[in-house]
């Protein structure tokens, strides 16, 4: 039985799939219509709840990928092997179908467009999602705060939002984008495949003396590694904000 909503507390809302875009062979962006959506800050996420005919339900968190447009919100979901929820959302979920959402939530892993510190974004795989929301919001808000993104992916075909990132790196003044490929590199790339390490972060990040705000997001192991590197390089741990997606975060 539905309980009456208590003011201030969050209850579940219903969203319906308005459109979907394939970002990579294994990742799909869902554009949802959520009547009454209150807006959100870049970096926030929603909890998604799916319920089966027999009453079984499963709940997972997904980052908001873009600033809201009225009642439209975007998520990008990576299909993980044997993933209960991600397999459904990337493979079966169809236009017009409802899901339940609780959000926006999270007041810590957020970037506020009024911010003035330089920003370093470090993404592993699907960890790009909330960071892309920050990049998109920066432009939408006309912020001139300098942003640097280091984006680690397995292969060039795994880059989410590839065309848009290329365009923004060219057109959004003050945005630098560096790719790290761990399994296969594009033709003519200056390095063989490599994992993110001290050199990459040191060369393509900000010096700690500039006291940048650092946002690190991706699979748990990736986040751990990068956060350790940043602290070892001298960044104040309080300025290193992390969002671990779990072992399968892409």
């Amino acid at each position, binding site marked *: 039985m539905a309980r009456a909503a208590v003011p201030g*507390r969050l209850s579940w809302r219903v969203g319906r799939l308005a459109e979907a875009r394939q970002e990579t062979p294994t990742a799909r962006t869902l554009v949802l219509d959520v009547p009454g959506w209150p807006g959100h800050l870049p970096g926030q996420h929603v909890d998604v709840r799916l319920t089966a005919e027999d009453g079984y339900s499963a709940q997972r968190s997904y980052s908001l990928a873009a600033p809201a447009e009225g009642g439209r919100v975007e998520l990008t979901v990576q299909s993980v092997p044997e993933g209960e929820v991600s397999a459904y959302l990337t493979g079966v979920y169809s236009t017009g179908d409802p899901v339940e959402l609780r959000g926006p*939530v999270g007041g810590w892993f957020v970037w506020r467009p009024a911010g003035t510190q330089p920003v370093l974004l470090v993404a592993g795989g699907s960890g790009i999602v909330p960071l892309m929301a920050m990049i998109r919001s920066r432009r939408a808000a006309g912020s001139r705060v300098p942003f640097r993104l280091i984006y680690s992916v397995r292969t060039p075909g795994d880059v989410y939002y590839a065309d848009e990132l290329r365009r923004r790196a060219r057109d959004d003044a003050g945005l630098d984008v560096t790719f790290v490929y761990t399994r296969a590199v594009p033709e003519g790339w200056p390095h063989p495949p490599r994992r993110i390490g001290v050199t990459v972060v040191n060369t393509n990040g900000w010096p700690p003396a500039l006291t940048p705000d650092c946002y690190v997001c991706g699979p748990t192991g990736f986040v751990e590694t990068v956060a350790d590197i940043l602290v070892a390089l001298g960044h104040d741990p309080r300025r290193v904000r992390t969002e671990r997606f779990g072992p399968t975060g892409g």
Partner: protein
Amino acid sequence: MPEQLDLGPHLDGNALAGPLREIFAVDVTAATSRCAACGQAGALAGLHVYASAPGMVARCPSCEEVVLRMVRTPDAAWLDLRGAVALRIPM
């Protein structure tokens, strides 16, 4: 006894934001808490959260002691904050 710890697959305190917003009218993950065991202060969002368990268990990133536990039963939420000295909630 000095036990060596193997950090399991954990999430950040951010992952508590949804479940806690079912209870509180404000976002508590941005609040600062101080660990009752070792005294380290930080945002709840920075705790280590173990979620593949019968409830959510949030531990201090510095000493790994339990700071917060949350269990959701069909008709109640159980919240244990005994590992936190106090919460400073920005208003």
